[in-house]
């Protein structure tokens, strides 16, 4: 026990600010009650009243940590003078450069945090100090983001709470408050367009529009507390954490060494970094608006490979679409096309795999997959043909029966005439 306390003190000391004393802490899991909120909520001045109102929803307050936990002072004193006595450690508004230390006084203390959230990481402050934000703050730049800039100062909510500004789908707006402002970003050599670019990306579509929380937002590539741009060499690692197949394909391609030699970022060269649009087969080529043209030009080996790759992809796409149209038409006309539909799905799957192989930039590997797709399409076409033949057969069957019926009509007509002539 003593050893633990000593350890805790040492850790806290390393961050410069000690963990709050037990008198400002309540019982974990039970909301705090103190004089600070009681008085401040009754104040007229919004600047002083609002923090107290927000505090009641705050995760810390709800876990029994009073205002004094961060601001110091005596939370139980009714007399404002006594409550906000600097001798009792009262700090008032915490200056930006001190915010990370204040938060870190608890959040870097593993044994302290264990009481509240056993699984929560305690390396945020260490990470923050390596981040662009932390480095700039250390140099005295107080405009950069600190803990409160993203998490809020009062009314802090856990990141898993959808109302929190650091909830996955809201992060882009939170970062965008600064990074979306070009004038604010200019001194740092950042364009300020990244947010707008990201909003056009497939990732934003998946995350915010389709509400797929596993899709990446700012912090998934840049890190959360250790926010920093990934280096050129690590871009493909970052993308590859999710896009493993494409990364493996790329790593086996001649591009890997070539890009490294030219100090080109791997994925970003074609897909861009923030404005990652849904990829199109039409990008492949050296023409205007095509990605290979950045390095290759018409006539070289790369251009030829690009042309071959595009031709096999596009040919398959066209054929697949035509076959699908044909199969669906037969299905609408009432034919059983299950087998053909399965074949079309197989073809679609091979096409998806062929698009993975594009990253090898090897036309033969792409063609191997597209010819698989072509084989499946051919089978579906055969089914469609059989269905069309069956429809034609029925059509002709009707024509034959039509003839038989008409013949009966003629025979009956003759019979009637014969009978009527008799009488």
């Amino acid at each position: 026990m003593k050893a633990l306390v000593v350890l805790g003190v040492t850790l806290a000391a390393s961050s410069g600010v000690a963990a709050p004393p037990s008198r400002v802490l309540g019982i974990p899991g039970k909301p705090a009650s103190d004089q600070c909120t009681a008085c401040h909520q009754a104040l007229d001045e919004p600047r002083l009243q609002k923090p107290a109102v927000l505090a009641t929803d705050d995760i810390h307050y709800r876990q029994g940590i009073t205002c004094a936990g961060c601001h110091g002072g005596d939370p139980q004193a009714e007399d404002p003078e006594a409550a906000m006595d600097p001798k009792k450690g009262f700090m008032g508004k915490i200056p930006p450069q001190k915010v990370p230390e204040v938060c870190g006084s608890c959040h870097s203390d593993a044994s302290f945090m264990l009481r509240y959230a056993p699984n929560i990481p305690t390396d945020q402050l260490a990470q923050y100090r390596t981040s662009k934000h932390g480095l700039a703050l250390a140099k005295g730049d107080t405009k950069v983001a600190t803990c409160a800039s993203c998490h809020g100062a009062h009314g802090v909510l856990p990141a898993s709470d959808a109302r929190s500004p650091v909830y996955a789908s809201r992060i882009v707006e939170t970062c965008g408050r600064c990074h979306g402002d070009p004038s604010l970003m200019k001194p740092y050599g950042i364009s300020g367009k990244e947010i707008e670019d990201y909003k056009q990306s497939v990732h934003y579509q998946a995350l915010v529009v389709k509400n797929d929380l596993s899709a990446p937002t700012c912090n998934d590539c840049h890190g959360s507390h250790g926010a920093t741009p990934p280096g050129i060499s690590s871009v493909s690692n970052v993308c590859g954490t999710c896009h493993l197949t494409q990364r493996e394909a790329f790593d086996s391609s001649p591009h890997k060494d070539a890009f490294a030699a030219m100090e080109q970022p791997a994925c970003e060269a074609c897909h861009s970094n923030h404005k990652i649009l849904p990829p199109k087969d039409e990008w492949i080529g050296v023409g205007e608006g095509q990605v290979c043209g950045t390095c290759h030009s018409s006539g070289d080996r790369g251009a030829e490979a690009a042309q071959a790759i595009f031709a096999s992809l596009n040919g398959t796409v066209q054929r697949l679409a035509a076959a699908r149209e044909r199969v669906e038409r037969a299905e609408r006309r009432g034919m059983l096309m299950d087998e053909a539909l399965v074949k079309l799905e197989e073809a679609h799957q091979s096409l998806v795999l062929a698009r993975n192989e594009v990253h090898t930039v090897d036309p033969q590997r792409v063609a191997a997959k597209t010819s698989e797709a072509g084989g499946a399409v051919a089978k579906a076409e055969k089914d469609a043909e059989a269905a069309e033949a069956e429809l034609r057969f029925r059509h002709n069957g009707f024509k034959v029966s039509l003839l038989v019926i008409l013949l009966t009509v003629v025979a009956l007509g003759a019979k009637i005439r014969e009978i009527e002539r008799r009488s």
Partner: protein
Amino acid sequence: MKVALKLGGTMASESKVTRKGFINWLLGTSLGATVVAALYPVFRYVLPPEVAEAPTNRVLAGKLSELPPNTGKIFRFGAKPGILVRTPGGEVRAFSAICTHLNCTVQYRADFQHIWCACHNGHYDLQGKNIQGPPPRPLETFKVDIVGDDIYVTRGA
């Protein structure tokens, strides 16, 4: 008809009988053909077809004896693939085999002990939940009923 008329013109005495006979023959044959053409399809229609039931939301997906623990099997709901999984613990579960990312067909990977999609390396756990890679949603879960050795899978239940 034409033949009959011709006959009627040449053989004066027999013509009436021949003509009448021909008309009767023609009428009988064509009427018979019409009746057969109408009744044969009906006869075939009422005989039970090869697949006795309209594809409902339930299929016989496989046999328990053919599905040892830590294996999977693809079955079909009409044109849509489903995946039957026998967990290493021996439990049988069924999911839609359509990957929620780009509609590829997923498979069971004995080495990972979970479901995997080859297209973009998407991983799903044994509850069908997307755990790694690009799939945005879990796989749709189907209900499994085991009757003797038969595994029945019910969709939308």
